[in-house]
């Protein structure tokens, strides 16, 4: 066999992803914020940053799986809101549901809604953005059935679930995110299911022709997303100490921003968890950095937007060579 002309390595392929740009940018951000305020580069601050993006990180895990397979899920914020309010209500004295059962119910709710999304998308064949735009509204509406309840969280376990630290340094939530990301990354790399996601996202027709059970896998991705919404919902009520029907509102846009920034292709078939993690750090640090820099409240949105546009523009320019002609 002749020697191939082009040799490939994983590292070369890594260099083509937006991740290096993101890492570079994050380093610049760290330098600027650290110069601006000595309190930026501290354990205390990073604990906070990590806890602050915990919910987004968990939701990102799910939406990423969905997006890799070419899907989309705008209902994540609503699903986590629903899980949160229902779990919080069930924890009230008048119901007194035991903690393990709360987890079970939360997960069942999240996964069921995910399943419904998946069924509508695959069996009826509605575009996922539209489906979940619809369910986003529907589920949020349902959350308000409990608007008059006013559950506060006294359950010590649930309280600790999203708030505690290991050795007063590492937030539990960070462990969750890292564990989720690693498990998912392994699943993506080392299972047929994971590889099939890339195939489906890359070219659905091809996947069908290759005999991959496309519909079933797609449904599973929405269930997975629903599962992570459950965790996120529990994290929300844990971190906020109460349940409210509006929790998680607008999360979809934030999470979408994060995963796309992290290099997940909107059409599917492309993305890695490392990039998403860096994107989480970047988005998580922008708000924090602006507090550190004492940017006036009204200007913060501008700075956030400018940073976002900057990051993606740099990445686009860096990949100029791969840029399409049109």
């Amino acid at each position, binding site marked *: 066999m002749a020697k191939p002309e082009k040799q490939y390595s994983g590292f070369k392929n890594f260099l083509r992803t937006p991740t290096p740009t993101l890492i570079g940018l994050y380093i610049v951000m760290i330098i600027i914020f650290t110069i601006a*305020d000595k309190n930026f580069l501290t354990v205390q601050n990073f604990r906070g940053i990590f806890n602050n993006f915990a919910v987004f990180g968990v939701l990102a895990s799910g939406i990423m799986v969905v997006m890799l397979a070419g899907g989309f899920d705008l209902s994540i914020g609503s699903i986590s809101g629903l899980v949160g309010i229902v779990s919080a209500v069930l924890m009230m004295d008048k119901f007194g549901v035991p903690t393990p059962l709360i987890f079970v119910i939360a997960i069942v709710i999240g996964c069921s809604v995910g399943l419904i999304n998946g069924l509508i998308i695959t069996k009826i064949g509605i575009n996922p953005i539209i489906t979940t735009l619809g369910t986003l509204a529907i589920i949020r509406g349902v959350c308000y059935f409990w608007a008059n309840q*006013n559950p506060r969280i006294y359950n010590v376990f649930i309280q600790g679930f999203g708030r505690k630290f290991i050795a007063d340094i590492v937030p539990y939530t960070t462990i969750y995110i890292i564990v989720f990301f690693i498990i998912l990354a392994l699943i993506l790399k080392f299972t047929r299911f994971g590889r099939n996601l890339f195939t489906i996202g890359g070219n659905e027709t091809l996947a069908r022709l290759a005999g991959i059970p496309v519909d079933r896998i797609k449904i599973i991705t929405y269930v997975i997303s629903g599962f992570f919404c459950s965790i996120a919902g529990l994290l929300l009520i844990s971190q*906020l*100490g109460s349940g409210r029907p509006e929790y998680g*509102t607008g999360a979809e846009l934030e999470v979408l921003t994060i995963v796309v920034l992290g290099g997940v292709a909107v059409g599917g078939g492309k993305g890695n968890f490392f990039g998403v993690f860096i994107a989480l750090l970047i988005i998580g640090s922008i708000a924090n950095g602006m507090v550190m820099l004492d940017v006036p*409240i*009204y200007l*913060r949105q501008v700075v956030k937007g400018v940073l976002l546009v900057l990051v993606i523009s740099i990445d686009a320019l860096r990949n100029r060579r791969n840029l399409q002609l049109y």
Partner: protein
Amino acid sequence: GCKTTTTTTAAAETTAAAETTAAAETTAAAAETTAAPTETTAAGGYPAYEALREAAKANKEYPGAPAKDFSLAFTNIMGGIPFCESVWKNVQDQWKLAGGDPNKLYYADNQYDATIGLKNADIMLAKKPSVLINFQFDSKVNSIIGVKFGAANIPIIAVDVPTPGAPFMGVNNFKVAYMAGTEAIARVEAMGGIDKIDKIILMQMPSGGEVTMLRSEGFYQAFVDKYGADVIDPKTVRADGGAGEAEQANKAMTDVLAKNPDAKTVVLTSINEQTMSGVIAAVQTAGRWDPEKFIVITQGCDATGQQQLRDGLTDASIAYFPEKYGEYLIPGSVALMQGQPVPAFMYVENQVITKDNIDQFYPKS
């Protein structure tokens, strides 16, 4: 104090004039009336209204079912929030007591959104109610609503946020915030004076518009009046707590705490109880929660606020008594329906609620 009188007939005229000047003036008035009486309207001058108020306060059927042949529209500032739900519930109850037909009580939810507020006002106008109770977050947007209803000769009662040319019911945001500030100052003094305080953190809601901003700026003003701006300004931190919900406030507080690692004694206020619940959770998570060193004063004292007080998380809350709003709004509306004058300002009696007196105002069920 300022006691402008407005009658139904005058209402139409003033609203017509509102287009040009009234709008700007009334917002200014909102700030001016800081000095307005703490107690509600003085008796006399509004016999019809006063008589109806008696029945309302007693929670009894109004004599002669005066609302029987009328219709009433109510637009809520943000449905789903405990505060607003309480207002709405009391309006419904009182409407029934006044003999009103529940089918003629029109409801719409303004969703804290001026665009929706306008849309709802138009829909309400199409239903030609006898009176509109307008609860919408931006006083300037209210001026155009006032003009439209004025043109249709439908009187308005504004709730919490002024509607130019219309009688006002509710709280004076600036005043209440100032009260909260005064309440905080008392605790600051008890701790040994302002020098002992590291930071004064205002969890704000920029997207709620200027009236909402008064809820923290009034608080700030009380501190400035007491200690002077040069002492207060360096201690003051303004944070964007998002849309009046716990989530964003929680994140913002986490960042503020990290920025100020040495702040141990802290004065906290926020625009509503939900926001504060997120703020407190952030302090707890950061491991910096110390009820002795955190002076937490909130505003509203809705169900969430009551629970926070009972749990010892907050030190005091300025009660707005949303569950009593209907006791003013319905007598006011009915008086207007009857062509009787109502006071220009129907302030609720704000009350400082602490752990000590909470059971007196909100008996445990």
